């Protein structure tokens, strides 16, 4: 019998190597897998490259991971926020490398990574600083730039419900990057609010089929 459900955070985060590329779901707080991030801090892997939309706020979540000194590089669309002081301080001190990526390009690069696409041409960022050094191609009357796929060692995401095969459904806008990140990592770990029996998730409504998910851990609410 296949069950991807693991009993605790330690089992969920086992085996993550130093230097890993880690996709972290969430848009601001919505969908941010805070329990798995805490698990990653406890697990202790270092020299990580993290890929996420925001670079943390306050002292929790991604900010706590940065403060723990485990991250070498952040690939991100919007690191600057009102209370992103942990990121700001490390970046200004030269202790973090930043690769700034437009948000839709970030999502599509991850999608490409998971879908076996070797790159794609987009009009986003043409003629801007973020296009510097990138191949430009003229296609059907417009300029496009070439963007590379992002593939990762690990994805940590938050979903709403799962079954033991790793099928996932999400909650409202907390879905955000979860479904694409799940496809683009060798090891996708989901924290969920609820685990249900096989067959209870409506097959028409499953957003992430279990093929993309390796481990599921239930985290009761409160630890959102």
């Amino acid at each position, binding site marked *: 019998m296949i069950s991807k459900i693991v009993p605790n955070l330690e089992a969920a985060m086992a085996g993550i190597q130093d230097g890993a590329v880690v996709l972290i779901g969430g*848009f*601001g*707080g*919505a*969908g941010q897998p805070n329990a798995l991030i805490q698990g990653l801090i406890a697990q202790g892997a270092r020299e990580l490259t993290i890929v996420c*939309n925001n670079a943390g706020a306050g002292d929790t979540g991604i900010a706590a991971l940065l403060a723990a000194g485990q991250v070498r590089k952040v690939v991100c*669309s*919007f*690191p*600057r*926020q009102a209370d*992103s002081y942990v*990121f*700001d301080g490390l*970046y*200004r001190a030269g202790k973090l490398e*930043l690769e*700034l*990526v*437009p*948000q*839709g*390009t970030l*999502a*599509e690069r*991850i*999608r490409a990574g998971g879908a076996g696409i070797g790159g794609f041409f*987009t*009009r*986003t*960022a*043409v*003629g*801007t*600083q*973020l296009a510097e050094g990138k191949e430009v191609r003229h296609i059907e009357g417009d300029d496009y730039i070439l963007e590379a796929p992002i593939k990762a060692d690990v994805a940590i995401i938050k979903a709403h419900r799962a079954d033991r095969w790793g099928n996932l459904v*999400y*909650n*409202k*806008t*907390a*879905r*955000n*990057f*979860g*479904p*694409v990140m799940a496809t683009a990592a060798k090891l996708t770990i989901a924290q969920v609010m609820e685990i249900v029996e096989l067959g209870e998730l409506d097959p028409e409504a499953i*957003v992430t089929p279990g093929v993309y998910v390796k481990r599921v851990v239930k985290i009761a609410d409160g630890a*959102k």
Partner: protein
Amino acid sequence: MKRISRDEIAARVARDIPEGAIVNLGIGLPTKVANYLPKDKDIFLQSENGVLGMGPAPAPGQEDFDLINAGKQPVTLLPGGSYFHHADSFAMMRGGHLDICVLGAFQVARNGDLANWSTGEPGAIPAVGGAMDLAAGARDVFVMMELLTKEGESKLVETCTYPLTGLRCVSRVYTDVAVFQIEPGGVVRVVDDVSGAGQDELRRMTGLDLAF
């Protein structure tokens, strides 16, 4: 000349949004446009974080922090609304399915170039979010801003000096002084002198050879 308020700019933008339009409102000032959309028309608000058919802010105590807008504020979903993941959300923009986006700006150039993500100051933390995707993807990019900086310089300019967000993408600029339309060939036409500034004063303030 009587400059209009930020809320009046928002109301002026809302007047130009037709029924059936798919609209993305950028964070900050453009969010106000939602307050002035006509209640009797179906207008579909899209938010980059994966929602179409976004409704107003919830009543106090009803906030759900899994249902937020691009500015990370709690919102609601209208009947008929839908959720989708980030790659689908930006495919919606990039694929030309978004009729209008409304963005703030540091500068807009005569040819429609937009600068709104960075002032290029040394040591500033850069952040771009979805601005470049929206600028490149939406069929019409409306900009909402005050016409002058605090120092009195026009933000509608001959050529942007701040780092660009998108090239030749802006079609209309709504300000506290006038509404400008960016037309092909570098023509900037005043379509609504909302402050009553008059042709000479508008030319003086912007330093541009405006059409009326």
